[in-house]
């Protein structure tokens, strides 16, 4: 059940997209988001959609996995669509009592829904194809200049990689505790909201205890291996650029340029 959460999960497959440098992938994701917000009309959205479809295909991600990631957002998407439909001025095509649905409203709603979905899918593509370790390595490399203004870049990256590393562990732990309490007849799915909140205590207490225990053990293990922060620390895997990364950057630039041009024509 909890294992079905795919948020931020990495699917280890060997594809050109998986092999891209994480720095490039991060930059491309940002470029994609910027381009997505510049998109104005069907043609630019088609370009964005094409990008997501092509990358999904190259990374051999099943569309089903992407849709699963969208599931938790259904309500937000629905509310956004309804609000956009009702509160956009213009020529009404349908009037029910005080509610006026305009042609412009319909377009605005459709684009907004498409935008949210593409935004989520585009960022999922990053986490699906990049292992958490690579992701934080990439972020650390990209944020390095911030070190000049005394931002503790390495520490932040380390905290993030530890947090990411422990998400699956904690999910597994939660699953185990839930099963153990269910085996003692705990019921999490009936009763009113107060009862349900109370039913969480048998899960949360052991979970917190074990999270603290793990943190303690990890700190001890790091200490034993003489971890002392980022200063003078070398890496086992150095990030290096290849021709495929150049190609990806070129493609990203082309898409951004394309969207800007399309925007200037109002397309």
């Amino acid at each position, binding site marked *: 059940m909890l294992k079905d959460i795919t948020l931020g999960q990495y699917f280890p497959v060997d594809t050109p997209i998986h092999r891209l440098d994480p720095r490039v992938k991060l930059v491309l994701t940002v470029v994609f988001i910027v381009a997505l917000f510049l998109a104005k009309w069907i043609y630019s959205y088609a370009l964005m959609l094409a990008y997501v479809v092509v990358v999904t295909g190259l990374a051999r991600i099943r569309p089903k996995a992407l849709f699963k990631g969208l599931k938790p957002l259904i309500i937000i998407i629905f509310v956004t669509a309804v609000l956009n439909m009702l509160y956009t001025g213009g020529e009404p095509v349908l009037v029910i009592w005080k509610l006026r649905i305009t042609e412009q409203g319909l377009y605005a709603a459709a684009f907004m829904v498409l935008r949210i979905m593409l935004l989520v899918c585009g960022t999922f593509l990053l986490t699906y194809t990049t292992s958490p370790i690579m992701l934080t390595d990439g972020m650390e490399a990209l944020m390095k200049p911030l070190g000049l203004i005394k931002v503790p870049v390495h520490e932040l990256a380390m905290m993030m990689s530890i947090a990411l590393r422990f998400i699956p562990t904690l999910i597994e732990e939660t699953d*185990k505790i839930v099963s*153990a309490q269910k*085996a003692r007849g705990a019921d999490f799915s009936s009763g009113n909201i107060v009862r349900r909140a109370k039913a969480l205590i048998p899960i949360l207490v052991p979970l917190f205890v074990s999270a603290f225990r793990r943190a303690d053990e990890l700190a001890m293990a790091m200490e034993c291996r003489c971890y002392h922060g980022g200063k003078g620390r070398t890496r086992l895997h150095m990030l290096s650029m290849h021709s495929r990364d150049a190609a990806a950057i070129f493609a990203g630039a082309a898409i951004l340029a394309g969207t800007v041009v399309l925007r200037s024509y109002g397309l």
Partner: protein
Amino acid sequence: MAPIIKTEQLTHIYSKGTPFEHLALDAVDFSAERGEFLGIIGQTGSGKSTLIQHLNGLLKPDSGRVLFEGQDIWQSKVFNNSVRFKVGLVFQYPEYQLFEETVFKDISFGPKNMGLKPAEIEERVYEAADFVGLGEDILKKSPFDLSGGERRRAAIAGVIAMRPEVLILDEPTAGLDPFGRMNLMKNIRNYHEKNGATVILVTHNMEEIAREADRMIVLSDGRISLSGTPEEIFARAEQLESMRLEVPDITKVFLELRRLGVNVPRSVYTIEQAKKAILNREGGSLFA
């Protein structure tokens, strides 16, 4: 006699439809008789934990059925819930599930969920604590103030307090010292004998299973590859080794003795039997 719990062609697949898809159980036909002490062995990842979580309805089969006293445990939600109380499952490292302020309250969690009256709950808590050898002073303590072994026993008492007809334990003695192991196994045997309960024990400790189990099954790659009395199973040392499992140390000693030409029986798997075998050896000559 009809088995108390049984599976028919039980199949379970983890992470279905993702690249992590994994066939954990492959058409398993398992059964346990009422009142028997059954051991399950198998290397890590052979499907032991998955199998036992099906027996009390925590996991739902992808195909196949699980029957408790001949009835499909998934036939209704009510029946499924009631099976959880009749088939008590103690997970690996159960001490990490303790959450209440006192050991007493923690042990009463199960009985309380059964909807029992306070007097009955109290009686069961004391009874369960007695089974695992926890004194009244410990019942008043916070579970987080106990030693590792006491915590383990408190957690097991939490399941025993439901008076399950089938008690399943997943490596109950892992990480305990030899004395703790011995005590805990004695407690479990006690529950088995006094209540006539079926006990299913999952373990990596061959000595334990050789000493306790009436019958044992060997799981490998999600299938039952061997089933029989410990005597029958441990006689097949080579086959067990091919599944990366071991026979008890004493059996190894006797097999080696035989290889050296000493006339001793093959199927020796407890110290007791070893003692008897050596004392009963015919004649004085060492080599036959």
